[in-house]
């Protein structure tokens, strides 16, 4: 990889386990600054575990992680979020009894109150559908709207690194299109994105590089081109 690009996230030799069952084994990866990097893998390959380990929601047994070159191994979850890592995980859902606006405000946990309204206004411009639903309880939104909300909530903080965990999960094809359109727009803002996806074709359409994960270990890494030609992506099992 080119030496001039500063990596937003560097992971080296990450091991995690669930009880005594190993989940991730020696995972090393880099998310280059301002680019979309994808992690591809089947259900249960360890993609979501990886996403949670980056935020220390799943504890790491071994390995080191660096955010913009700074070691963050000892940081608790909230400090990692405060330092600029945001995650949007479709499977985790929303704060269903709060309004859309309150959900976004929860995402803006570390934004100064004086800047909050300005920032929310920017979000509504990027996600016009949310402006219409401001006073509605998040639990009453449609699946697509909830995914929008989840992404919007994650970017309110203006993170350095955005982790998108399966954004297309359970969505109708037309909504999947829309979600990936948003990812393209986010890419244009020079934000670093780690896209964790099962849908390889879609993911590679926005990513510039990526990794393939199988049974908790990285089995292939390369540029988007190299990935799309690899046996792992062509393999119908995926």
């Amino acid at each position, binding site marked *: 990889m080119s030496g001039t690009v500063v990596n937003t996230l560097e992971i080296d030799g990450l091991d995690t386990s669930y009880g005594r069952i190993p989940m991730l084994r020696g995972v090393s990866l880099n998310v280059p600054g301002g680019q979309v990097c994808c992690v591809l893998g089947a259900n249960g390959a360890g993609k979501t575990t990886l996403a949670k380990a980056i935020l220390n929601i799943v504890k790491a047994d071994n390995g080191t992680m660096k955010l913009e070159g700074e070691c963050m191994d000892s940081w608790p979850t909230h400090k990692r979020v405060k330092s600029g890592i945001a995650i949007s995980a479709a499977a985790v859902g929303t704060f269903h009894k709060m309004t859309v606006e309150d959900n976004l405000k929860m995402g803006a946990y570390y934004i100064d109150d004086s800047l909050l309204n300005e920032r929310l206004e920017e979000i509504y411009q990027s996600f016009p559908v949310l402006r219409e639903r401001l006073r509605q309880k998040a639990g*009453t939104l449609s699946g697509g709207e909830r995914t929008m909300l989840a992404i919007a909530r994650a970017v309110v903080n203006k993170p350095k690194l955005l982790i998108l965990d399966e954004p297309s999960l359970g969505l109708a094809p037309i909504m999947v299109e829309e979600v990936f359109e948003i990812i393209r727009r986010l890419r244009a803002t020079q934000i670093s994105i780690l896209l964790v996806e099962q849908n390889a074709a879609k993911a590679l359409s926005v990513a510039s590089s990526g990794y393939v994960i199988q049974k908790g270990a990285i089995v292939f890494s390369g540029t988007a081109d190299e990935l799309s030609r690899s046996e792992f992506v062509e393999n119908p099992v995926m």
Partner: protein
Amino acid sequence: MDMFFGLAVSAILLGCTYTLVAIGFSLFFGVMDVVVFCCGDIAIFGSFAIMGAYVVSQSAGLFGIFPFWVCVTLLILIGAVFCAAWGLITHQLSIKPFQNSSELMPLLSTIAMGTVIKEVLGLLFKPVVNTISTAFDSESAVTVVSGRNPQGFPSLLLPGGTVDARHLVIIAITAVLLFLLFLFLNKTKIGMSMQAISQNKELSLMTGINVSRVIIITFLIGGVMLAISGFLVGSYQKLMSFDDGAMYGAKGFSAAVVGGLRNTWGAVIGGMLLAFVEVFVSGYIPRGTAYSSIVAFVIVVIFIVFKPDGIIGDKSVEKV
């Protein structure tokens, strides 16, 4: 009609005392997903702390130096510090160690904590050796150790006012307290975080909420709420027994279950419903007092079986 009105007032007052304990349950259940069974004991500890502090401050002449209301506020603060400390101890010793074990563990360990709190009170406030003075006063007397150890609660709430005025103040304080709690939960960052944790703990972590800090703050605030409950319960009942906590705990928990464990307003509705049932069963059914609590608990069992979500249930559960 006169009796109806009298009973209604009694029920509202009793409902206030239940509600305040029930809110403790729903606050803790909300953020921790565990039933903290020693809420009642913490509240009763609060009222005993206030009682003890009153005796000490009175003998130290505090009431002569400062205006009455300053002293009372100080006493409540002392109670609040004690209850907050118990809240913290409960979290650290009875809940945190069992975070990753079965839900039953914190339930049992908080029951055990309740027993500890109760026995500590029992030790500090020795069973009163009641001197049943007999005909032979001058010579000797029978001593009977009264296990229930009733202690008179000092008149700290409108000591000069009428009973009706005092009752009005109790209702008013409960209402103000509920309003403040509502503001706190909905208008402050910490309050919103508590709700967030209650609704989706994983997402709360992902949002960057310092969950363990919020949990500790919840226990502190819950402790303070329970201390004020203890103060109001004491001022209303005027007679406290160190083992009253189990009864208030059971009633508060029932109120919370009937209303909906996660919902603060549910605690109010549940507390009032329970109190109304109890008071009216006792008031209108001949010899009903012996069974009023039983009727109330039967209602709770019916709710647990048929409507476990309570009156204000969690209807908008998200389907993923």
